């Protein structure tokens, strides 16, 4: 019986090293669940059933779920589209060259473009609380599109370089009013 525990502990160390050295985040989540399952069996071998149930129930069930959601949230580039209020259909191809530029930009940084519409609220609330990365607007008379984003957002800075060549796009920066209190 104790030899199995030694083997499992060696296996645990290998999984821990794999987590530390690995790059892609999704495989790390699987490794983390494996890590906590092995750790739970080891607790069981140390005659600690309560700790094993707690470890499995929390670290192997709920925490990886939260990891998955937070990582998927971090690959989304949220664009608030104020121009067309029609229903956005995911598989319907987005027309217009602004959307091509956006889809090219998001695919370049391996992110998913998530266009949403008719959310009201001031820009400050939108960008700070609602995690909107880009507000797309169009002047009623002229053809130019207005792209609004936060000044401190590095993605928005990269987007500015990419869309330099397209002629009728105007970039506006939202200054993030740091709480000066």
């Amino acid at each position, binding site marked *: 019986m104790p030899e199995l525990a030694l083997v499992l502990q060696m296996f645990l160390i290998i999984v821990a090293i794999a987590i530390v050295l690995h790059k892609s985040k999704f495989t790390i989540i699987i490794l983390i669940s494996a890590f906590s399952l092995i750790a739970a069996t080891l607790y069981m071998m140390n005659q600690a059933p309560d700790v094993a149930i707690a470890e499995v129930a929390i670290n192997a069930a709920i925490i990886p779920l939260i990891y998955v959601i937070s990582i998927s949230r971090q690959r989304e580039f949220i664009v608030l589209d104020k121009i067309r209020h029609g229903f956005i259909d995911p598989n319907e191809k987005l027309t217009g060259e602004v959307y091509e530029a956006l889809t090219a930009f998001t695919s370049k940084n391996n992110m998913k473009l998530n266009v949403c519409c008719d959310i009201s609220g001031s820009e400050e609330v939108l960008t*700070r*609380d609602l995690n909107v990365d880009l507000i797309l607007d169009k002047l009623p008379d002229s053809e130019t599109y207005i792209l609004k984003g*936060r000044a*401190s957002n590095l993605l928005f800075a990269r987007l500015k370089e990419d869309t330099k060549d397209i002629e009728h796009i105007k970039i506006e920066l939202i200054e*993030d009013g*740091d*709480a*000066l*209190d």
Partner: protein
Amino acid sequence: MIYAPVLFVFIPIIIAIAVFLIKSPKAHYLVFLSQAALIVLFVLYALFLSANPDQNIIVFGGWDARFAISFYNDWLSLVFIGLTIFMWTVILLYTFKINYAQKKLFFFLMFLEGVFLGLIQTNDLFNMFVFLELTTVLVTILIVYRKGGEAFKAGLQYMLLNTVAAMFFLIGIILLYYVYGTINIRVIASEIALYSDYNIVKFAYVLMITGLCVKAALFPLFTWLPRAHGVAQASISALLSGLIVKAALYIFLRVNFDMFSNAYSMSEMFFWLGAISALVGVVIAMSQKDLKQILAYHTVSQVGIIMMGLAATGPIETLFTNPAAFGGLLHAVNHAVFKSLLFLAAGSIIRVYQTKKVYEIRGVFKTMPWTAIVLIVAMLSITGAPFFNGFISKSLIKYGFKQDALKMIVFTIVNLGTMISFVKFSQILFGPKQKLIVDRQYKQHFAMSLLAIASLVIGLAYYPIFKSLFALTWGGALYLDYLIYIEYIGYMALAVLIFHFVVKRDYLPFRLLRGSPISFLTANSIFVFSMIVIGLFVFL
């Protein structure tokens, strides 16, 4: 009356939940009800404890003291409880008008007060770990409260670094548990001599002290403090630098001098650790441009000075007889008073001027006279001017190592650095009247003047306070010999000169210091490095 310590912990927590549950913002006045109840309770409990000092341990559940959680109070914890209640009342007075509708802010603030009071009184190591983690989580949420981009970054770094430090503190507790069979501090303190020369107890000591060095922001591991202060609200950073950093020093006293009763005689090393962090803190503070960063790095150096004082304590009882140790403790109290006064005043100035840069703010004396007066009181007491509380504690600490020339030089350099950085800070006072809308915040003025009066009272009436409370008879005629005035004015003149010729020109080393903050990754490797250094000191 014996269960007063439990009420200390649960009155703020119950009020916090009541504030959260009641819909109308009128419920926020409950907060002052709880503060009043705490003040009354503190006075009664202090009288009760001085009357019969043997009833200061409460064991929960009536089990054997070795296996149950217990609260322990002595003069040291009473001083800190009084300081906490006073500071929280002032902070609540200050922030009441600004965040009137912020129900959640009062919930977190009051919960933090209850947890902090529990942290001071607990006599059980694992319970201390749980309270430490709760304080870390609450302070992170308070730092992140205003949801600014910088606030999230600083809050995350604060939480991760402190959690790792608390986990190492926990490993130390585990090893102690297996050697002594109990987690009760008093029981371990009585049995410490049995196993204290075994290596495993030394290793537990090293881990616990390293964890505490991170939480007390001592020399190599203070990188999280300036970032947390730069972004938090004025009242939160006043609390953070006034009290939360002191909690780590309080636990350091309990663990090192009370439980281990200085078994490894490390006071020399702690003195130099404090001295280095004081020097480094002051030098970086001189190079800063941001108002709050100057004060933040100053907290690091003042904590170093407190550690210089506290390093001289022997067993806990001597804390009230050894002048240097008592000076360190008094400096902790004084620092909480004048540093939070500085942060509150800086906060209201920044809110009026809408800028944080020292060079862009001018003419505070004329536009905001009341805040300027209070700021001058705080600056005089931090630089150690006679008649103010900074002077008392600094002269007590200096008295501790009177004969050691090297320590005196280091101490005077640190004082000089303090004066220089506050000459730089005081630039904002001069200059013409700015036409800015200054909204009359009477609650804030009252809170700040309360702190200024406290620092004056300790400064002037220190002798009767010492005699009545702690039966000490030092420094009776401190203010009579004229030497101290000449010494202070001389140093101040030297500081002004150095400031104009060196600091104002902002030479390369100053720009370098300002530009290269340590990233979170290097902070961890420094954490491991400092663990080894402390380990070498203990094992060899």
